[in-house]
């Protein structure tokens, strides 16, 4: 008993007080700013392992981006700048494509629009099930971290549950392999009828660096559209929690 008390004292207070205002330190790579000075050398496009960067005009698809920062390093005109801003979730696939005109303020306000029915059903309690379908386990570990003592997403009533039968929706990580296709489909059908789908990480959103591999089967996403896309490689816990809170319309 005395040992436990000692442990508790050493532990101290660990939680992040305000998750909505918390910031991530540099050199974290989050929202990219694109300047209007492209010289057209295409080094960024050539070097991108996932085909996320396209030039003339320069556009970055956050749904494909692995946030490796190679394009920023190679650009002779310093036209791409990954900032530490981490609230980059969106509710449609199209919004994830960042161009020169996209400002962070505006992106942050409009990228995830809270939906009334979602807020009504899940605003105070959202139980989710994660289905990993080919993920490298980094997104899975970050999802676990969302529930640890530091991030403590449970304070908002958002929880990861053990079975899809207890869940209001599923979180998909990984590029959706052929071998997981059936299990993913089954898990989805086990959740409640008003289920939501969250695509977590570049792999789940677009296939990421695995896009085009013959071992994938992404038909599930042709049939069902995710309600929330959370980019990252892997997704930072703050990106995840803020994205879900935006979807629920919480302040």
């Amino acid at each position, binding site marked *: 008993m005395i040992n436990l008390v*000692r*442990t508790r004292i*050493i*532990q101290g207070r*660990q939680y992040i007080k305000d998750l909505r205002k918390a910031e*991530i*330190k540099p*050199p*974290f*790579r989050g929202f990219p700013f694109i300047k209007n000075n492209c010289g057209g050398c295409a*080094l960024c496009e*050539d*070097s991108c*392992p*996932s085909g996320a960067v396209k030039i003339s005009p320069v556009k970055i698809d956050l749904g494909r981006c*692995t*946030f*490796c*920062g*190679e394009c920023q390093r190679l650009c002779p005109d310093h036209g791409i700048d990954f900032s530490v801003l981490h609230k980059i979730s969106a509710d449609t696939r199209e919004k994830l494509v960042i161009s020169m005109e996209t400002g962070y303020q505006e992106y942050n306000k409009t990228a995830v629009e809270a939906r009334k029915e979602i807020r009504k059903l899940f605003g105070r309690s959202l139980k989710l*099930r*994660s*289905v*990993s*379908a*080919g*993920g*490298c*386990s*980094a997104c*899975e*570990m*970050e*999802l*676990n*971290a969302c529930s*640890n*003592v*530091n991030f403590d997403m449970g304070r908002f009533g958002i929880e*990861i549950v*053990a079975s*899809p039968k207890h869940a209001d929706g599923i979180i998909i990580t*990984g*590029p959706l*392999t*052929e*071998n*997981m296709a*059936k*299990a993913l489909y089954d*898990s989805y059908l086990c959740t409640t009828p008003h289920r939501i789908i969250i695509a977590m990480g570049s792999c789940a959103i677009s296939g990421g*660096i*695995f896009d*085009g*591999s*013959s*071992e*994938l089967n992404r038909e599930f996403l042709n049939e069902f559209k995710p309600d929330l896309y959370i980019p990252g*490689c*892997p997704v930072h816990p703050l990106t995840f929690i803020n994205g879900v809170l935006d979807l629920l319309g919480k302040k």
Partner: protein
Amino acid sequence: MNWKRFNCSALIKTHDIPVVTMEDLRIELTAKVRIEDKRVLAFFGVKRGDSNILYIILGDDTISRLFITSVEFDKDTRSYRSFTPDVPSLQLFEREFFEETGIEPEGHPWLKPVRYGKEQITRTGLIEQYPFYSMDGDEIHEVAVGPVHAGVIEPGHFRFMCHGENVYHLEIQLGYQHRGIERVLIDKTNSFSEKSIFFPQIAEKIAGDSAVAHASVYASVMEILTKTEIPHNAMIIRAICLELERAAVHIGDLAAILNDIGFLMGSSTFGALRTLIINTSLLICGSRFGMGLIRAGGVNFGITPDLSAQILGNINTVQKKIEKLIPLTMLEQPSVLTRLEGTGIVDKDTARLIGMVGPAARASGVPIDIRTDYPSGMYRHYPARKIVLEKGDVFARSYIRYIEMMHSFNYIREQLDIIQNGEVFTRVTGKLPADALALSMTEGWRGEVIHVAVTDDNGKLIRYKIKDPSFNNWYGLALAVRDNGISDFPLCNKSFNLSYCGHDL
């Protein structure tokens, strides 16, 4: 000479590799593994024209040398006599070889599917139709778990054959994570322009918890192929981040083990300490898992004196806290020790026989650690400490994590001392050489990470073989839970903490 001897940073021309007959190989391989105590590091096929070439690479841990030989199968040879009955550690290698080439190892005791890849030659049926063993009798029951698990982890299927609470046998079926990463890496390397043919970003995704280990092995394979010398500072930063990764996962696993015995206080304390370590990685390279750090030719981020002080501060905090916490939460808690001690034992002979690697093997008394056996990078100049325990139970596999973590902190401190301002990468240019083979390896936190690249006569990559330590150790987990209560499975599982995606590729 039936074997070519080389050391692990050497570039080998494929014509220099001896080609032997299957009969010669059988005699020599068996003798080398069983009598001379050499280990099989790689065993894979490469398709060349109509024929398949099987490469076998053995390692001698005592003299840090590798031995390679090959066997050529023409298009009419569809089988050979399996090595597995004589050399059990080859069981999974042979199943993998069969899947990829269709050449059958006759007499293999369980020639079951490994990955169910779409492009695989021997694929029959779906992953749901895996031919499990089954057991019959009074009070016998089977428990099926997965592929979707209760925790937030990767998919895999476990089939327990139980007699009451006791596990008779556990069959582990993987393959759900197979996404063709070797193929993706080869295709991207060959199709991209000459400006950028290196993709450590893909290597990082082989197993997210070993991103630094896999990316640095990938980078060093490419450096061997292009004959690039990397700056001293880059080697130091790679070593620092590899040790940070080791410490972070080890501490996270201690948290998970305590969580699995229902000791939540201990679990959350270690969990919070892990956060501090992975946030230190973020300060170095912008990713909590060390992604985006490593490039062919060095690293992308330097360590300034300011950053060095921050890293030092963080590891000092963690080290001090954990030194106090380990006795409080483990060593002096009888209720914790009773769950860990004597659970899931893998003895030394078994570990050696089935070819286990990494801390799991060292906890069973098998003294192998790539950092000291085949040192490369900074480990050549500043040797790491090899920790070997004997018991091989869950406690040994947990305790070894603690000791290794403490040595990692000391190692990082040593490296921060000698780091200087200066270049952190060399620009790597040019094509890959023709007809070459390069191997590199390092000790990730889970064990030896080995990559082998083979190029064809145009300098195109034709094979990129990845071997994650999970590939060796999954069978060890199956043996560890034998004769244990089924409720101890989570403990055994977490004490190994194997990668599904590293196995499935």
